[in-house]
């Protein structure tokens, strides 16, 4: 419980830090949001600034932003009239979430399966080929993989569409590109923890009882070997999320990642600010849930503080 309390406090503090830092950074950037366009008449510029409260003193803007944030209002977009950051997130986040969940499911299932096989067939060809593949997946950046997949399947073989979102064919390539790196990592993690578990005494006991190998692996080894993978879930989600910036951009998937990248190029302050805050809060919350889950799963760990030392 003490842990729960302290973590909540850390998260609240971190979130406040995120908002403040993002706000400061956004307002330090040279050239206002309307600077990049062709020169506007002074009157219009002043009107625009009036409308978005840009000529209020900074502390007022900051205060307003914080208050609106508490109400869950992330403000309007500067670039697209009549659109709010909330509406952008509401519209595009489901797409990102769908793509992200597909990638997470794929990387977890493929990674755990491949890692287990590699551990069971240690130092045989299955192990070597899986580990070679995993090393490959570990070393090839996602944008390179995305380009490669696109070139092979969309341009050369022409079996899958290269862009957009909606049908299942359109989901295949982005999901693969997004899932490759975490799959490789999970496979390596799973292999090493499985190898360790298989050497434990209780596995020998299970063998001595005459249980089938299949049963031993599924019932006795897997639930214990899977724990490191559970801890990796937090970083996994973060990796998928940041990967989605590039992958959604390349495959023109209309998700939040693509919006984020576009709003950076457009210097659309409130969108950058809003999406960053949203992503940060989302990730921290998920990490928190994962930690609690982990403590519930593994009674040997009463508090994750122990791991720091």
């Amino acid at each position, binding site marked *: 419980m003490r842990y729960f309390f302290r973590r909540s406090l850390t*998260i609240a503090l971190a979130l406040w830090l995120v908002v403040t830092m993002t706000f400061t950074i956004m307002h330090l950037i040279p050239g206002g949001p309307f600077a990049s366009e062709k020169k506007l008449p002074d009157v219009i510029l002043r009107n625009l600034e009036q409308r978005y409260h840009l000529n209020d003193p900074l502390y007022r803007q900051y205060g307003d932003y914080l208050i609106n944030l508490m109400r869950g209002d992330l403000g309007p977009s500067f670039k697209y009239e009549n659109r709010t950051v909330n509406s952008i997130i509401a519209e595009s986040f489901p797409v990102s979430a769908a793509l992200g969940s597909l990638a997470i499911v794929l990387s977890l299932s493929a990674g755990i399966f491949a890692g287990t096989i590699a551990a069971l067939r240690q130092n045989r060809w299955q192990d070597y080929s899986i580990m070679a593949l995993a090393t490959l997946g570990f070393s090839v950046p996602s944008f390179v993989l995305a*380009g490669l997949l696109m070139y092979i399947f969309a341009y050369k073989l022409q079996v899958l569409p290269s862009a957009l979102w909606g049908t299942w064919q359109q989901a295949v390539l982005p999901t693969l590109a997004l899932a490759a790196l975490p799959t490789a990592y999970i496979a390596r993690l799973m292999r090493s923890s499985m190898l360790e578990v298989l050497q434990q005494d209780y596995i020998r006991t299970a063998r001595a009882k005459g249980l089938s190998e299949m049963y031993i692996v599924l019932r006795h080894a897997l639930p214990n070997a899977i724990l490191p993978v559970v801890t990796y879930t937090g970083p996994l989600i973060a990796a998928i999320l940041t990967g989605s910036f590039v992958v959604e951009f390349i495959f023109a998937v209309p998700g939040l990642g693509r919006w984020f990248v576009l709003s950076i190029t457009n210097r659309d302050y409130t969108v950058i600010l809003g999406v960053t805050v949203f992503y940060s809060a989302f990730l921290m919350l998920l990490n928190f849930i994962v930690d609690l889950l982990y403590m519930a799963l593994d009674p040997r760990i009463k508090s994750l503080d122990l791991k720091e030392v």
Partner: protein
Amino acid sequence: MEIRPQMFQPLPAKRQAEEYADHPSYSYWQDVQKRFMKHKPAMTGLIFIAFLVIMAAIGPCVSGHTYYDQDLSMVNKAPNSAYWFGTDALGRDIFTRVWYGARISLLIGLATSVICLVIGVFYGGISGYLGGLADEILMRAVEVLSSIPFLLYVILLMVLFEPGLKAVFLALGLVYWLNMARIVRGQVLSLKEREYILAARLLGLSKWRILCRHLLPNTLGPIIVTATLLVPEAIFTEAFLSFLGLGVASPQASWGVLVSEGMSGLRNHPWQLFFPAVLISLTMFAFNFVGDGLRDAMDPHLRQEV
């Protein structure tokens, strides 16, 4: 029992020889070196990195083209005898640009690693050695900072700074030192209870001297490993940023810029993507292998399969 003077004769020289070890003794670092040399993937990685460094040094000069010269009559040419890796959409020589990109990317990797090394080692070292309240405050700060999704921060910092090399160093350095600080702190924390530190304190050495002369040198192993593994991560992140248009400014070219440029011409000119992509991937391979090899060589007990 009768005691005779013969019992007190020295043993013949032959018996003494048996007590000598039959091979020379090695220092810790010689041992590390031996184990590292035996680690085949790590040695392959090291050789590749050496090759990369040499090519980064001489590569941009050997083809007779410069990385920024545009030749609009030679746009999008496939690899040929004049342009070994072909040309890009502005008629620039990709061979030259790739090796020039290697300079930038390697520089970013190394510089980030060094920056994090300096910040992380001192922050972690001080936190671990002082302990108590100072440690609590310093580590809480690290905890709060590291719960922020760091890539978002790098992106924001890059939006803020003028694009360019300095911005990349700063943004990556500001973000990546956290892990290093944690590792160093953990090491220092476990080392500072050792007897030799007690001895040093009894001799009246200052805290600073104990930290710098006695604690930090002994944490060198994990520090070197972490720093090595940071290099590919920094290169990777920079490539990622450049890909989003936030990294090094044109006409300078890192591998990320080259990949990003290659991506736009992918359908018709795949070689523009191929060369930088292969180089990035091989470099990641090499540094990861070297890092793994170093970890195994320095700490055979902590050998991990991952």
